């Protein structure tokens, strides 16, 4: 039965826009097992956040649905905790209070005050933030804020932990620290995690499975790669591991060969148009004889 712990069941998402419906996702379908660490990777704007928000219940799918332990979800809930890209801590609450607001709501009438306190501290210790409990978010660094955001999500004891580019706003060094921390935590808790990222190394290092999305509109699952690398994983040792590099290669080639960056596509089209119009004008002038000649000239110009 564990085969369909979380089922994203043929989800289609249409956004109403002033110029008609915009189909962001078309028939997205995949299954996540319990305790699995899934990464969703794809180019910016392909619909990753949309998928995550639908799983979280923050958005309603136009068609299809989300099944958690065979029950269809409706609306958001703490059993699907979310870590947002921009920490989203209450700036007026201390680190401790930011976690406490979640704990008090989720464990209302289930834990005593003392137990709640212990649970808050426990989760802050898990992300190594217990030393800054009384600080305000404005007094700690970006990486620390994100740690608190993760502690808050973990403190909800979610069935699924959803993370939308949790380290996207951090510098490279902080990001790798955070990745190590997350691997440590995952080894202890064995949560079911869905993480969005656009960092190929991050995806391969952390995940059991990488879901690669095709470009929108009407984005879909392009390819799924199972990452069969032993844990605990060590980024330095993996760097020389041929299997690791093979996985990396596969993701990279999907992203940059099969799904070229949508942002660079229009530019290419434009330059081709330019060559064509120039070619057409030249056709009309009797002196020019060969269009391909012109193309090669412009190409050599580029090379120089």
């Amino acid at each position, binding site marked *: 039965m564990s085969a369909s712990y979380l089922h994203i069941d043929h989800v289609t998402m249409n956004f109403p826009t002033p110029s008609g419906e915009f189909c962001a996702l078309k028939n997205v379908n995949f299954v996540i097992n319990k305790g699995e660490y899934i990464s969703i990777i794809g180019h910016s704007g392909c619909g990753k956040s949309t998928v995550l928000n639908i799983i979280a219940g923050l958005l309603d799918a136009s068609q299809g649905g989300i099944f958690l332990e065979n029950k269809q979800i409706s609306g*958001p*809930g*703490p059993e699907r905790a*979310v870590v*947002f890209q921009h920490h*989203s801590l*209450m700036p007026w609450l201390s680190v401790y209070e930011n976690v406490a*607001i979640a704990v008090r*709501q989720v464990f209302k009438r289930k834990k005593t005050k003392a137990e709640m306190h212990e649970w808050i501290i426990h989760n802050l210790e898990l992300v190594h933030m217990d030393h800054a409990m009384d600080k305000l978010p404005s007094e700690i660094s970006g990486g620390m804020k994100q740690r608190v955001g993760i502690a808050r999500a973990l403190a909800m004891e979610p069935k699924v932990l959803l993370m939308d580019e949790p380290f996207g706003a951090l510098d490279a060094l902080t990001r790798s620290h955070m990745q190590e921390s997350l691997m440590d935590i995952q080894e202890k808790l064995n949560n079911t995690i869905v993480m969005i990222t656009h960092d190929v190394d991050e995806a391969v290092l952390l995940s059991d499975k990488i879901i690669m999305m095709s470009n929108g509109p009407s984005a879909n699952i392009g390819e799924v790669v199972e990452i069969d690398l032993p844990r605990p994983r060590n980024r330095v040792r993996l760097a020389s591991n041929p299997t690791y590099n093979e996985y990396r290669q596969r993701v990279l080639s999907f992203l940059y060969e099969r799904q070229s960056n949508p942002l660079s596509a229009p530019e290419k089209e434009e330059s081709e148009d330019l060559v064509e119009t120039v070619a057409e004008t030249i056709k009309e002038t009797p002196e020019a004889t060969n269009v391909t000649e012109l193309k090669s000239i412009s190409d050599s110009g580029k090379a120089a």
Partner: protein
Amino acid sequence: MALLTLPNIQMLEKIDIQESIKQFMIPFVAIVLFLIFWEVTASQIKTSLGLVPGPIEVSKQFKNLVVEHNEMRAKATAFYERQEKRNAAKLAKDPDAKVKIRSFTGKPTFFDQIFTSLITVFAGFFIATIIAVPIGILSGLSQNFYTAINPLVQIFKPISPLAWLPIVTIIVSAVYVSNDPMFSKSFIISALTVTLCCMWPTLINTAVGVASVDKDLLNVSRVLQLPSLTKIWKIVLPSAIPMIFTGLRLSIGIGWMVLIAAEMLAQNPGLGKFVWDEFQNGSSNSLGRIMVAVLAIGIIGFILDRLMLSMQRLISWDKNAVLR
């Protein structure tokens, strides 16, 4: 390390002191220049009441007002002492005798008028706040509610206090009838006029503050399934607090300006009436006394603003916001 950092700290302190001297000196010099300019130009303008008073004459008038106030207080004390003695004597003769206790009815002094105006502006501002903040929160939360009240707000907002006054006066006179009123009618009229004019900035700023709560924070509250009231209390209100205070500061400033105008026009007790009475009086001292009142109005307005500012500093979580 310690040796290295020590001189740095001293240097920092030195800069701090220099900075604070500068902060103090610049406005001081500006004020002195203004006073000189005032003294010089004033002495060149002749009016029907004599020369326009300069700062020296005005400060003399201020001292006079203090003296008058003290005299009036002494009279009042004397009056009550006499009344008490009289009543005690009456009661000694006949224990069943009815004694009358009258209150002193001297003309309110300049400082009495200041006190009245302050109480009135606070009352009007208080009513405005308890109306505007909840409505602002509602219209920030609900687009429909906002759409409903927006045209009303836009129409009522630019109405001058002088236009409200007759309506308020007539309605209060009709509705507020009581043999033993807790508040005088003039107080109610002035306060309500202040309310009507000063509630709009608070309402609009609260609505904007509530509507612009970080979407991520609202999503956090949705994930946590916080009940609506908890959501408003724990997330929406704290987020909107800086904007609410911006509104409150604008409101109390407007309220104070409106009140003076309303008191002048309606002859309701307060600083406005003091100015109007002096204007009608037309003695050689009047212009100087009016100028004392005008300065007092300005200084009190400034103090009210600073009061709101320090309250904002105390309550708002956003300690880094630049507050001016």
